[in-house]
């Protein structure tokens, strides 16, 4: 059993996805309970896997015991297990919160979310390039379907926009994988990476460019961000939390894994400045887009773009410290954005427009507090985790003499204060709109309150525990060098 943990963390959610499709014919309630249990089991399995990695170092799992040159391997190092944990935690948070989701067709929601979990976990664990492509497509298909799970007009339009971008990214990725296979005759990442330096320079450039554009679309790095605001705004909030908290992180993981293992740290050449520039443009552009929004979910969506920029900038710094900061920010962003999207959903019974939130604070205490906590954490002030990761990012950049890059960190924070300030002003305004005062606020179940409280704790905990976390993250970053 313990030997098969790497494949179990992929198989368990996948199997539950199909079980849920059958279970719903007997009892929808059973499907709901099963979804939460499967997500809990998933987190426990990932924790056991993490323990195994901590004790034995990198775990290599050969599927069906085929030799790595011909078969598929799963490679679990600190970085992989860290992202598997981020994904499992985010899924559990969303699973518990949305267990009583009043969606029209909520059972296909459970199936799709489980398959999504399997796909995302596969992405971070696999050591095979084509297998990675298959998991990417699995993830994007299930997330596209999740966006339209309510079959409302907004969701369907968003899903169509999302699938068009996903197909383009998938095709570019497939082309890159094929070029690598043609040149090396292998799909094993380690073997391909070992031979990569010997390929023709043109081929190297084309492959890196294809990967960069494909993953740029996946992570919504500006100028490939066109799909993100509509998709995060148009999908149900629990799905937005999944997309922003977990799916986006798989893109970040692949960016780090592929670009850093293919090109050795010394020979980054044009890649490193390009990542830095993309990071800076994305931070600035994401925050600027957020300034122009009046819908709270759109603000959160645009701020997701900006936060991806911080992570990309961390990779662009190119040192272990920079990558560590980028990974730390990914971890923080998962919990902050999930908390923000989930609490925003609990608060927008009247609507998601800032104007409709006037004086809401008095009526929705738990959700309101969590919303304020998670958005303050997104701004990046102490005592929240994001403050530490932004601080680490700025110091890592300054150590490398990249002052101009480090400047974008406080600039981004200042812009975030501006647009969240507008939300707060409406939220805390004493003048209560008639219509708002009349409506009964949605009753939050105790379970939902607990989830929101857990997210709020998750925003603060990385700040308090940053010493221990940083040593783990540093070990993860060193897997790339």
């Amino acid at each position: 059993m313990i030997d098969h943990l790497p494949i179990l963390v992929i198989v368990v959610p996948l199997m539950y996805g199909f079980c849920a499709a059958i279970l719903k014919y007997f009892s929808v309630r059973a499907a709901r309970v099963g979804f939460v249990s499967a997500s809990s089991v998933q987190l426990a399995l990932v924790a056991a896997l993490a323990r195994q990695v901590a004790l034995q170092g990198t775990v290599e799992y050969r599927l069906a015991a085929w030799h790595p040159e011909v078969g598929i391997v799963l490679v679990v190092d600190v970085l992989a297990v860290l992202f598997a944990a981020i994904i499992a935690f985010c899924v559990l948070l969303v699973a518990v919160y949305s267990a009583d989701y009043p969606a029209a067709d909520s059972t296909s929601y459970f199936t799709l979310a489980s398959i999504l979990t399997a796909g995302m976990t596969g992405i971070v664990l696999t050591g095979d390039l084509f297998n990675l492509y298959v998991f990417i497509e699995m993830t994007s298909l299930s997330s596209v379907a999740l966006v339209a799970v309510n079959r409302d007009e907004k969701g369907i339009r968003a899903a169509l926009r999302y699938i068009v971008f996903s197909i383009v990214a998938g095709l570019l990725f497939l082309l890159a994988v094929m070029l690598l296979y043609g040149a090396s005759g292998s799909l094993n990442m380690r073997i391909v990476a070992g031979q990569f330096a010997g390929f023709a320079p043109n081929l190297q450039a084309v492959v890196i460019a294809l990967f960069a554009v494909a993953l740029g679309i996946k992570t919504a790095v500006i100028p490939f961000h066109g799909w993100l605001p509509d998709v995060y705004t148009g999908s149900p909030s629990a799905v937005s939390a999944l997309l922003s908290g977990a799916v986006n992180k798989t893109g970040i993981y692949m960016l780090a894994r592929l670009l850093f293992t293919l090109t050795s740290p010394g020979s980054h050449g044009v890649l490193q400045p390009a990542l830095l520039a993309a990071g800076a443009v994305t931070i600035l552009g994401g925050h600027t887009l957020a300034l122009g929004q009046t819908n709270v979910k759109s603000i959160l969506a645009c701020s997701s773009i900006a936060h991806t920029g911080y992570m990309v900038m961390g990779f662009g710094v190119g040192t272990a410290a920079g990558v560590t900061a980028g990974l730390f920010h990914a971890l923080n962003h998962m919990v902050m954005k999930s908390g923000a999207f989930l609490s925003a959903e609990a608060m927008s019974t009247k609507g998601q427009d800032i104007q409709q939130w006037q004086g809401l604070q008095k009526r929705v205490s738990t959700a309101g507090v969590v919303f304020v906590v998670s958005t303050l954490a997104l701004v990046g002030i102490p005592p929240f985790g994001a403050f530490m990761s932004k601080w680490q990012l700025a110091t890592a950049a300054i150590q490398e003499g990249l002052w101009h890059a480090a400047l974008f960190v406080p600039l981004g924070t200042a812009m975030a204060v501006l647009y969240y300030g507008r939300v707060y002003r409406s939220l805390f305004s004493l003048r209560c709109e008639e219509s708002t005062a009349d409506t009964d606020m949605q009753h939050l179940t105790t379970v939902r309150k607990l989830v929101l409280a857990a997210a709020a704790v998750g925003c603060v905990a990385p700040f308090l525990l940053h010493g221990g976390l940083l040593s783990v993250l540093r070990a993860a970053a060193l897997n790339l060098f």
Partner: protein
Amino acid sequence: MTFAHLIMLGLFLLGFWCVLTETDLIKIVVGFNIMEASLLLLLVKMAYVPGGRPPILFPAAPDAAKIVDPIPQALTLTAIVIGAATTALMLSLIVQLHRHYGTTDLDELREIR
């Protein structure tokens, strides 16, 4: 770059052109399928061995050079399946869209919004 590669490049660009310029969603799906077909052709072409034979080891197999690499063909099959799933999902979304708006034309959809 051989003649075959030029044809694949042509197909890819044709599909891309179709995706960029057509306004009807169904035609955009067709464009994506043409792009994908060109990539799959490239994959099959990569593994093509003139006069090749199946990758089965006989005790008396004379020339190992003629063995066809089976992996690209397995990959092609997998990619076809993924392509079919993607096309199906996109078409089903288009059907839903048509139910809501009564059109699959992007220009008309923009006007409705």
